[in-house]
C-alpha cells in the first residue's frame, strides 16, 4: 500500500509500541505533525528541545521502554544534542527523530540546516539519514532494536522534509536482522567458573554494582548473590536501587562522595565483583590505588568497558542478568566459602560504618538540605516515589540520604552530569509511571536551566513535584572553590534569582517557600500528596558541603570527612574510657 513518508513514520512508531512522545514542531516537520494530529500517540509539547530529549530519557529509565523525542532541523536538532549525549553516557534507550531540510538542499546552508547526523555521530549509539521514504519503516525498526538491545543508547533518525512528504510503498518488516550487530548475552562458562571459584575462596569480597544492574533487570539476582554468599554491596550513583538501600549488607554509594565504609571496603577487599559498572573516575579516584588487593571480576555487556580504566583479572562479557544466573548456578557446585572469614569481614565493615557514618549537623533554626531529603524519604516511604535529580550537591545529597530500595526509582544524570536534566526527566518518568509519585530534587542553579518546562507541566497537568534546595550558589563548584581554591567564589554566587514560588504561580503551578525546619514536614505533606504539580523553594543553609569527599585523583585515605557528630564523638569517648 502507498503511504506518505510521514504516515509510514508514525505507523512504524505505533508498531514499536510508542505511546508517548516529547517534542517541538518546526517547518520541516509539518507533514509529520499533521499525521500526529490524529494519531493515538500522546504527544507532549515541551518548551525547549533539550527537555524533550531528557523527558524521553526519564520515560525510558522509569519504564525500561524506549523513549522517543522529536525536533526540527537546525536549532531543533542542536538543542537535542545535550539530551542525546546524556542518554549516550548513561546507556539509556532513546530514539531521537529530527527533521532535515529537503534532500536537494542538504549541504547548501539552507534555512535551519544543520548536519544532525554528523553532529551526533560521537554521541549516539547509531544514527541514520533517511534518503528514501521506502527506508523509513526499516530504519525505525532498526533504530528501536539498536537503542534497546546490547548496551542501550540513543539512536538518531534524521528525516528530510521531502522524505516525509513523498508517497512510497509501505511493506511491513517482521524482524530486524543486522549481520554486523549481535550483542553477546551469555557469559563464557569458563570465565564464570573462574569467577565462582574466586568468590568462594575470597575472605573479603565486595560487590560493586552499577547502572547495568538496573538496565538488565538484575536486582533480584544481585540480592541472591549477596545474600547467599554473604557479600557486602556498594553501588554507583547509576546503580542505586539495584540493591535495597535498607539492606544490612548495603554499604552505601562508593566513590568521590561515597561512604567511608564503602570506600574502605573497596580498598581492603580481596575480590571485587564489578557488575554492570564501568570504573568511572568519580568512582575510582586514583586508578592505581583502586581496589589494590583485589582480584577483579568484571561483568559487563560492553567489552570496551572492561579493562578500560582498571585491569580485570576475570572479565566476563555478557548481559548482567544472564551472567548472574550462570554464576549463581555455578556457585552451587563450587566448594563453600569460609563463613567465619565472611562474618569477620562484615563485622569490620560494620566498625567502619560506626566510625564514620553519613551525617550532618542538624539545626533547629536553619534549614539543612540533608534534612529536607531525609524528611522526603521519611514521608514517602510507602509511596516508593521515583526521584530524579539535577546535578551537583542536590544530586549527591540525594544519593547519600535517600534510600532507594527498588530499581528505576532514581533517575539522575550520572555520566554527563547535565544540569537541567532532572525536571524534564521527571516529566518523562511521570508519563511512564502515572501511578507513582515523582519528585525532582533540584538545586536553584539547575532548575533554572529548564525552568520553562513549568509551562509543560501546567498545560498537561503533569503532577511532578520540584524540590529546590536553594542555597543561592552553584553549590558544588562553590564547595570545590572552598576546598581547593581558597574560598575564592568566582562566579558561583547566584543570589540574584527569581522568587521561585512566584515563578511557579505565574505559570499556574502551585508554589511554596520554606525557610524554617519546622515547616518542612507540613509543607511536604501538602505539596507532595496533592494531585497537581508543585514547586517548593527550600531556603537551605548556603554553605553546607557534601561530605565525605575524596579529592579528585586521590585515595580513600585522603577523604575529607564530615566533622564527627556529637553521638559518634561520645561513642568514641566511651570506648576510650573503657
Amino acid at each position, binding site marked *: 500500500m502507498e503511504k506518505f513518508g510521514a504516515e509510514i513514520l508514525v505507523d512504524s512508531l505505533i508498531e514499536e509500541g510508542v505511546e508517548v512522545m516529547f517534542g517541538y514542531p518546526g517547518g520541516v516537520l509539518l507533514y509529520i505533525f499533521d499525521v500526529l494530529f490524529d494519531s493515538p500517540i500522546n504527544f507532549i509539547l515541551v518548551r525547549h528541545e533539550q527537555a524533550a530529549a531528557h523527558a524521553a530519557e526519564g520515560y525510558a529509565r522509569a519504564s525500561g521502554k524506549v523513549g522517543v523525542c522529536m525536533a526540527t532541523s537546525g536549532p531543533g536538532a542542536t538543542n537535542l544534542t545535550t539530551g542525546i549525549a546524556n542518554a549516550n553516557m548513561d546507556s539509556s534507550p532513546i530514539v531521537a527523530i529530527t527533521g532535515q531540510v529537503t534532500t536537494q538542499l542538504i549541504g547548501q546552508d539552507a534555512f535551519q540546516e544543520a548536519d544532525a*547526523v*554528523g553532529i551526533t*555521530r*560521537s554521541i549516539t*549509539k*547509531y*544514527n541514520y*539519514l533517511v534518503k528514501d521514504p521506502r527506508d523509513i519503516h526499516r530504519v525505525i525498526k532498526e533504530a528501536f532494536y*539498536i537503542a534497546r538491545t546490547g548496551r542501550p543508547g540513543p539512536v538518531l533518525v534524521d528525516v528530510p522534509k521531502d522524505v516525509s512528504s513523498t508517497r512510497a510503498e509501505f511493506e511491513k518488516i517482521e524482524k530486524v536482522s*543486522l*549481520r*554486523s*550487530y549481535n550483542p553477546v548475552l551469555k557469559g563464557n562458562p569458563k570465565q564464570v567458573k573462574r569467577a565462582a571459584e574466586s568468590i568462594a575462596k575470597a575472605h573479603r569480597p565486595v560487590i560493586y554494582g552499577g547502572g547495568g544492574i538496573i538496565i538488565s533487570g538484575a536486582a533480584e539476582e544481585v540480592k541472591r548473590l549477596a545474600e547467599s554468599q554473604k557479600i557486602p554491596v556498594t553501588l554507583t550513583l547509576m546503580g542505586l536501587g539495584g540493591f535495597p538501600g535498607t539492606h544490612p549488607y548495603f554499604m552505601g554509594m562508593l566513590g568521590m562522595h561515597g561512604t567511608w565504609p564503602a570506600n574502605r571496603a573497596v580498598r581492603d577487599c580481596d575480590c571485587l565483583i564489578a557488575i554492570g559498572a564501568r570504573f568511572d573516575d568519580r568512582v575510582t579516584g586514583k586508578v592505581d590505588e583502586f581496589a589494590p588487593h583485589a582480584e577483579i571480576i568484571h561483568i559487563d555487556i*560492553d*567489552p*570496551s568497558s*572492561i*579493562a*578500560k580504566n582498571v585491569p580485570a583479572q576475570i572479565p566476563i562479557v555478557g548481559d548482567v542478568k544472564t551472567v548472574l544466573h550462570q554464576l549463581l548456578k555455578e556457585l552451587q557446585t563450587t566448594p563453600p566459602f569460609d563463613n567465619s572469614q565472611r562474618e569477620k569481614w562484615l563485622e569490620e565493615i560494620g566498625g567502619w560504618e560506626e566510625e564514620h557514618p553519613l551525617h550532618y549537623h542538624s539545626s533547629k533554626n536553619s534549614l539543612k538540605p540533608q534534612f529536607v531529603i531525609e524528611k522526603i524519604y521519611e514521608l514517602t516511604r510507602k509511596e516508593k516515589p521515583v526521584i530524579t535529580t539535577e546535578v551537583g550537591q542536590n544530586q549527591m545529597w540525594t544519593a547519600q540520604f535517600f534510600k532507594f530500595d527498588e530499581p528505576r526509582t532514581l533517575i539522575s544524570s550520572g555520566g554527563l552530569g547535565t544540569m537541567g536534566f532532572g525536571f524534564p526527566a521527571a516529566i518523562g518518568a511521570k508519563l511512564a509511571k502515572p501511578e507513582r509519585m515523582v519528585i525532582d530534587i533540584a538545586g536553584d542553579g539547575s532548575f533554572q536551566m529548564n525552568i520553562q518546562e513549568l509551562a509543560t507541566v501546567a498545560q498537561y497537568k503533569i503532577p511532578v513535584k520540584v524540590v529546590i534546595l536553594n542555597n543561592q550558589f552553584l553549590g558544588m563548584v562553590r564547595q570545590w572553590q572552598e576546598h581547593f581554591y581558597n574560598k575564592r567564589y568566582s562566579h558561583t554566587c547566584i543570589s540574584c534569582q527569581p522568587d521561585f514560588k512566584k515563578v511557579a504561580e505565574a505559570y499556574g503551578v502551585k508554589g511554596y517557600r520554606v525557610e524554617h525546619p519546622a515547616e518542612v514536614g507540613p509543607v511536604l505533606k501538602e505539596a507532595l500528596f496533592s494531585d497537581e504539580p508543585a514547586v517548593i523553594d527550600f531556603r537551605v543553609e548556603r554553605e553546607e558541603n557534601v561530605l565525605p569527599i575524596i579529592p579528585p585523583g586521590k585515595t580513600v585515605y585522603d577523604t575529607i570527612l564530615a566533622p564527627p557528630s556529637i553521638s559518634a564523638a561520645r561513642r568514641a569517648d566511651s570506648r576510650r574510657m573503657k
Partner: protein
Amino acid sequence: MSKHTISILVENRFGALSRISGLFSARGYNIESLSVAPTADPTVSRMTIVTIGDERVVEQIMKQLNKQIDVLKVWNVSEHDAIERELILVRVAATERSQDEIIRMSQAFGAKVVDVASGTMALEMMGDEQEVENFLNLLKPFGVKELIRSGAVAMLKDGK
C-alpha cells in the same frame, strides 16, 4: 609505542567511514594511514588503518571498533602473519646523467617509470613497509619532488 595495522570489514554504507575515523580522532589517536574500498562482496568494505599506540590504547581501539554497529570484523594484523603492501607514486628530479641510475635502481625494486617530464621522472613502486622505505632512502639523494602513498593494505596469510 608501536605501529599497528588494523584491518576492518565494515558495511559499505555512508557514514561508516566517518564513524570509524571519528573513533580515533575523538580519543586523540592519530591515524597514520587509511585505505578503504569495497571487497568482492560490494556491500562490504575493507578498511586498513595504520595507527601508533601502546598495547592498552590499541586494545581499547579494537574494542571500540568491534562495538560499532557497522563493523563486521576487526583484526590487529600486526599480531598475525600477514602480507602487507603499499603503493607509492614518487616524482624525483632526473638529469640526463642520473636518469639511467634511477631506472636501474627502480628495476631492482620492481618499480616502473610512469611519467617522464622535463627534469623529473615519476615512478610507481609497490612493496611492504621496509621495501618502500629502502627505495625512498635510495631516491632521496636525487631529490624527491613529490610523494604520494596509498597507505597500507594487508591480508592474513592463513586465509582467515
